[in-house]
């Protein structure tokens, strides 16, 4: 069969995952696991000694943890949203990106909630959130949203794997797979044989799931935005928050997608799959989003500035003052709103490398802007802080918070490395289908 040769070609090229782990691979896993262990040790200290060993105090009650929570969940929702839109829009060039997007979604959706658990003074009472929930509380909205989203996204991810699992099962003998792999693929492929009926069912399920996931993620991230927006705090109590959160989530998701594509392209020599065009298209998307982001930030600023209220004035003073947050504020605004426009907008600068570099800068800038959205606001309550303890006035994260932050990143990478051992990080079966369809369009007569 014709299709077999295509899939075999794709399969052959991407079968390195089946090989026995190399020393380098094991080393990577060990290092990442060690970083995670340092984070776990920090967690142990925090639980046994109390929250005083973090930088959190009565005014800044959350700090870096909640910044990570918002940021990581943003990546997740963005992954789901973009994947869903690409899928329903039948955007063919984006098919190779689908798996990465869904993996981003699920991994960050697993890691993100841990950061809010780190904010709990009594983590052992966590299950009270499920036993005695009060629906009035935005935290419960988040619990419901995250759990719902997690269920849908894991199902969605699994459904998109089925065709590949079946493909791997059918080629298991040819690829000299060890026995456990054969059994595993047979089990997870749940008897999918690519019969027309099965195909129709699966494709319909994928369409329905994509259609569910798009509104679910929008609702879920809006609910997260309202965790802040529902507070009476100056700097949070703003109706722009939910759309602003969605926008920055999509923005950060595109940046992370570019970064991961670039890493795979470099390390696995996947230039023909993650092509220059992919970088160009996503680069333009990044640039467009940066302009939108700048527009949102500016409109938030200008409405505050035009008629500056007292507490709001104190807050913006902190943002713009170089002895406070000025350096971070201007720096991150540059990274997030201007840099993509310069690097990607001007053809002379535009290249795969520069686009990847920009996406790293965007991720860093967006993280800092989330920090600025949270910490200075908590440092600027209505009642002036007249405390003489400097750590009560100014938040500064301790190594506990930083090591748990880095542990989260390490865990994310670790998840990617481990899951890439189960199946290729590109959806081979789907790409094959696309190529088949493309052939049909080019030479329709052959079919007759």
């Amino acid at each position, binding site marked *: 069969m014709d299709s077999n040769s295509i899939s075999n070609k794709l399969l052959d090229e991407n079968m390195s995952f089946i090989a026995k782990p190399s020393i380098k691979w094991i080393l990577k896993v060990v290092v990442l696991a060690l970083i995670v262990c340092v984070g776990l040790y920090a967690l142990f200290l925090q639980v046994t000694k*109390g929250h005083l060993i973090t930088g959190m105090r009565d*005014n800044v009650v*959350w700090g870096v943890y909640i910044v990570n929570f918002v940021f990581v969940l943003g990546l997740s929702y963005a992954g789901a949203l973009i994947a869903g839109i690409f899928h329903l829009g039948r955007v063919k060039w984006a098919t190779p990106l689908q798996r990465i997007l869904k993996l981003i979604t699920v991994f960050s959706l697993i890691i993100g909630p841990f950061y809010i658990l780190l904010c709990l003074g009594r983590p052992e009472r966590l299950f009270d959130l499920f036993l005695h*929930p009060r629906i009035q*509380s935005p935290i419960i909205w988040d619990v419901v949203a995250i759990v719902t989203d997690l269920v849908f996204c894991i199902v969605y991810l699994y459904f998109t794997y089925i065709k590949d699992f079946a493909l791997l099962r059918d080629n298991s003998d040819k690829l000299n797979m060890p026995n456990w792999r054969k059994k595993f693929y047979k089990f997870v492929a749940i008897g999918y044989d690519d019969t027309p009926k099965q195909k129709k069912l699966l494709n319909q399920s994928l369409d329905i799931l994509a259609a569910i996931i798009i509104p679910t993620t929008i609702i879920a991230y809006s609910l997260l935005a309202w965790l802040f927006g529902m*507070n009476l705090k100056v700097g949070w109590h703003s109706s722009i928050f939910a759309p602003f959160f969605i926008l920055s989530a999509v923005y950060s998701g595109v940046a992370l997608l570019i970064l991961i594509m670039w890493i795979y392209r470099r390390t696995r020599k996947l230039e023909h799959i993650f092509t220059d065009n992919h970088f160009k298209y996503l680069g333009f998307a990044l640039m467009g989003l940066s302009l939108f982001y700048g527009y949102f930030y500016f409109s938030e600023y200008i409405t505050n500035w035009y008629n500056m209220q007292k507490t709001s004035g104190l807050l913006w*003073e902190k943002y713009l003052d170089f002895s406070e947050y000025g350096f971070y504020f201007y720096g991150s605004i540059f990274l997030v709103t201007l840099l993509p426009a310069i690097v990607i907008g001007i053809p002379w600068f535009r290249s795969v490398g520069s686009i990847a570099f920009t996406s790293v800068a965007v991720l860093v800038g967006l993280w800092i802007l989330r920090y600025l959205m949270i910490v200075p606001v908590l440092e600027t309550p209505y009642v*002036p802080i*007249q405390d003489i303890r400097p750590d009560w006035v100014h938040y500064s994260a301790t190594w506990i918070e930083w090591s748990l932050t880095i542990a989260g990143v390490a865990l994310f990478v670790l998840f990617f490395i481990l899951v890439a051992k189960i199946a290729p990080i590109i959806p081979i079966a789907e790409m094959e289908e696309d190529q088949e369809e493309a052939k049909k369009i080019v030479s329709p007569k052959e079919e007759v």
Partner: protein
Amino acid sequence: MGSNSRRDFIKKGSALGLIAAATGAAGIAANQSEKPTGEKMKVLTTDGKVIEVDKPSSNCEIEPCAPPKGEEARKGIPGRSFVMVIDLAKCKNARKCIEGCQKGHDLLPDQEYMKVHLMKDNPEAEPYWFPKNCFHCDNPPCVKVCPVGATFKRTDNIVLVDADACIGCKFCVSACPYSARIFNWTDKESYASNDPNYSPETGTPGQHGTVSKCDFCPDRSREGKLPYCAMSCPMGAIYFGDKNEDAVYNGEETLRFTQLIKDRIGYRYLEELGTKPNVYYLPATDRMFPYERGFSSLSEEQKEVMEKSIESK
């Protein structure tokens, strides 16, 4: 003969008032009633003599006297509508309210349910001292956001925290626009979880990793006593009472609440936030002391921080 008549006078006239003064436990005047039991107790008169007077039936003002636990603690004292009035003209930052509260609630020296801020309303106005506790709002932003119902609003206006239910998410701390809530950051020997004697009304023993705050001392109201802060204020700046009785008391005088707020143009801090606080302030006009006198109870460092914070920008 002379001393006898004097003794009679004291006995008949002001026995209960004296008991109150001697034990430092003044009831809400409007609510006082004498119930002689036949038992005698010794009290000290103003001129230093020990006398015997009738002992009142119990020191319980509101039944049940013991602070309730669990579900019962969430209901509130029937028929009560507690309210506080703070007369800013009388406050000289003596900080006795803070000390009294800390002692009563087993707080660390840096944990303040009652804070005294230095405020300045506009560049021309004189600064003034501003004691601030929990306002026990009728529309409390903290209660709205609690995910597990550990903090709740009662029928007697009081907002309490049940430390046994608190998961320590701190959302209420950030939701309170008045910075009234504190988190128990460090563990203490006296802390205990699920202590049988714990009542949200007393807040003791506290718990590590939970949120706590001013509780309006309903346990003391049950005994007919003023909250620790009102009782400790040497200036009588803090009035506590009941809206339903329309009376507030500062340990020296009982005033009609509505009349007081009307006459002195009492206000609620940040009224525009719509939280409907139950703590009212009487403006700091015609102050009894220059505000600078309040600095004597502060460290030089604290003074600097406060002066910097009210600098007009």
